[in-house]
């Protein structure tokens, strides 16, 4: 493919780089010269939610997730299968897709459910007919209530967490970090990475938040200690 796009075939490349270089001969003003516009603090008054600062990381994660209208369950590692079974039954999930690297003991006991174990081969079209998906989670961010999926075997390819309407995500507490700044010391980008913060949502109509547009409309997070 690259052969069709030899750099020498692209006169615009040279032109743009030359324009940029000649533009840079004019030095920009010193950006640090003015501190005007630096407020000492954000909005005045006591923030409504600032209590989060005192919370333990896991509790903070749970609070922020709930604020996004995600459902959160806290269990021991041994309690994962029971929690999964409870969610499947209470949400009336009849069909399920799981990535092939997910711990089988977590979903083996879910009973009468049509199960697809996805190893990443085959087309993505078809997953839209499946009710729910269960995945693991390589990293989660407490301050922002974010699940980070990075294509590991227990997370699977992107399409399986996109087309079904219920996403059940199992987060082990050791995967939870405090803030966004630590993110890229935990995960790499050799696979596609998706950051998920609550269910799909839009605020496009009168800025009213509506949960559920194109992605999963229900996000259920099982936090396992």
């Amino acid at each position, binding site marked *: *493919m690259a052969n069709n*796009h030899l750099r020498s075939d692209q006169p*615009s*490349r040279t032109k*743009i*780089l030359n324009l*940029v270089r*000649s*533009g*840079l001969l*004019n030095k*920009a*003003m010193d*950006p640090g010269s*003015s501190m*005007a*516009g630096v*407020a*000492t603090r*954000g*909005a005045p008054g006591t*923030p*409504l*939610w*600032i209590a989060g600062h005192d919370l333990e990381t896991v509790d903070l994660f749970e609070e922020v997730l709930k604020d*996004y209208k995600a459902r959160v369950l806290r269990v021991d590692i041994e309690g994962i299968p029971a929690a999964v079974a409870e969610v499947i039954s209470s949400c009336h999930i009849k069909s399920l897709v799981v990535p092939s690297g997910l711990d089988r003991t977590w979903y083996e006991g879910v009973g009468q459910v049509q199960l697809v174990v996805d190893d*990443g081969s085959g087309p993505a*079209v078809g997953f839209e007919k499946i009710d729910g998906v269960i995945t693991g989670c390589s990293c989660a961010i407490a301050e*922002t*209530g*974010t699940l980070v999926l990075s294509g590991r075997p227990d997370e699977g*390819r*992107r*399409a399986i967490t996109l087309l079904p309407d219920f996403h059940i995500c199992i987060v082990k507490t050791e995967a939870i970090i405090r*803030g*966004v*700044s630590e993110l*890229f010391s935990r995960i790499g*980008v050799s696979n*596609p*990475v*998706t*950051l998920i*913060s*609550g*269910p*799909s*949502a*839009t*605020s*496009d*109509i*009168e*800025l*009213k938040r*509506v949960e*559920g*547009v*194109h*992605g999963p409309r229900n996000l259920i997070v099982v936090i396992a200690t």
Partner: protein
Amino acid sequence: MVWMVLSDMAGSRVGFPYTSLPRIEDSQLRANLRSATTAIREKRGRVVAEKDDWEELRLKGEQIRAEVLNNLDSYLVKLEASVENVGGVVHWAGDAGEANEIVLSLVRQHGESEVVKVKSLTTDEMGLNEYLSQGGVMAYETDLAELIVQLAHDKPSHILVPAIHMNRSEIRDLFQGTISKGTALSDDPTVLAEASRLYLRQKFLSAKIAISGVNFAVAETGTICVVESEGNGRMCLTLPKVLISVMGIEKIIPTLDDLAVFLELLPRSSTGERMNPYTSLWSGVHKGDGPEEFHLVIMDNRRSAVLADPVGRQTLQCIRCSACLNVCPVYERSGGHAYDSVYPGPIGAILSPQLFGTESSKSLPWASTLCGACYEVCPVRINIPQVLVHLREKVLTEGHRSSSERFQFAILSAVLSSGSRFDLALRTISRLRFLINRFLAFGSLPGVAGKWTVARELPEIPKESFRVWWRRSRGQ
């Protein structure tokens, strides 16, 4: 001042004062805008206050963006190499026309006549949808607000919430006449979102080609980042076989750790959320997951000229969060359409004249009170008021000063530079006050000066000036 600039363009009646006038008189529009901008300002204020290190983050954001711009040539070359290294194809476009051609020829190479699109200001700037349509390719917008705007044959009026000028019942009526024909809808936003979900799902599943913009491109790894809420972005970035992403040359971030700074700054500034629902990162082509072909179109379209201006350069730091729109008293009253540009609001008032240089965009540096609220909220600390003043000067020195304006300023300068001449002028005006006040009784000044009184009232001229009164009553 703006009437002076406009007196130059007399007859053409272009520019912000004219385009904003009908919007300001539209009370429904003003109500929609007021409630929307108020709501989003409050949300942003709350989530920004949660971050103790917000000002530090802003400084970091500014430094990273400035570093990229000041070394843009080497970052562009580095990004190109990284993207190619992970299996992407890089295309360079000098202007919008060339970028459009590249995209259309890629679509044609695959024999497709339909594409799905993720909301992208850059492709709006290019007029890509119109270009594709002329070339026989239908581009479906998949972001809810962009879909609304496309169905209404309207134009976006806000960077982030393109349909901010429409309320729920207007949208319900639109859907009932288009994508939900024959179905009775309520004006509940949940119902309206569901209607778009049903309409677009088939498009996502059948589309072979997707077109997106780029929020950030990481030079170090060739990773592209797209930030969104609804999941339409993920659909477009994951399901079709071919992905074409278009970016301006300035959208580069050096490293992944730098990217983390912007993943904090952007959602809190733009939607007032701690994090937006979905952020997608991909590095070229990933076997077995997502598109089999990835094309990155890097477009200049006069950005290099903005870069060459030492004061204007900071404009390119913008990450398109739209926080400046939501705090701007002018935007809140005029709405986005008044700016007659893809980029409205304070950032549009400095970006549009530099990028497009059109007659109407030359009036935009005056579409501001210079109150500075935009600078205070800008997550990358673009000193918008400074650039506005700089551009005003530029517009005026580039020949947009009429001889009548020169004459007016010559007189003003002569009067104000001497105490005795100033005194004489005041006394003369007081003496002529009966004549002037009679004009004022009709509500406007005569001639060119009449433009000033179209929307303003002059106070009655008093019998004597303050200076005269002071000298008389306090004695000398």
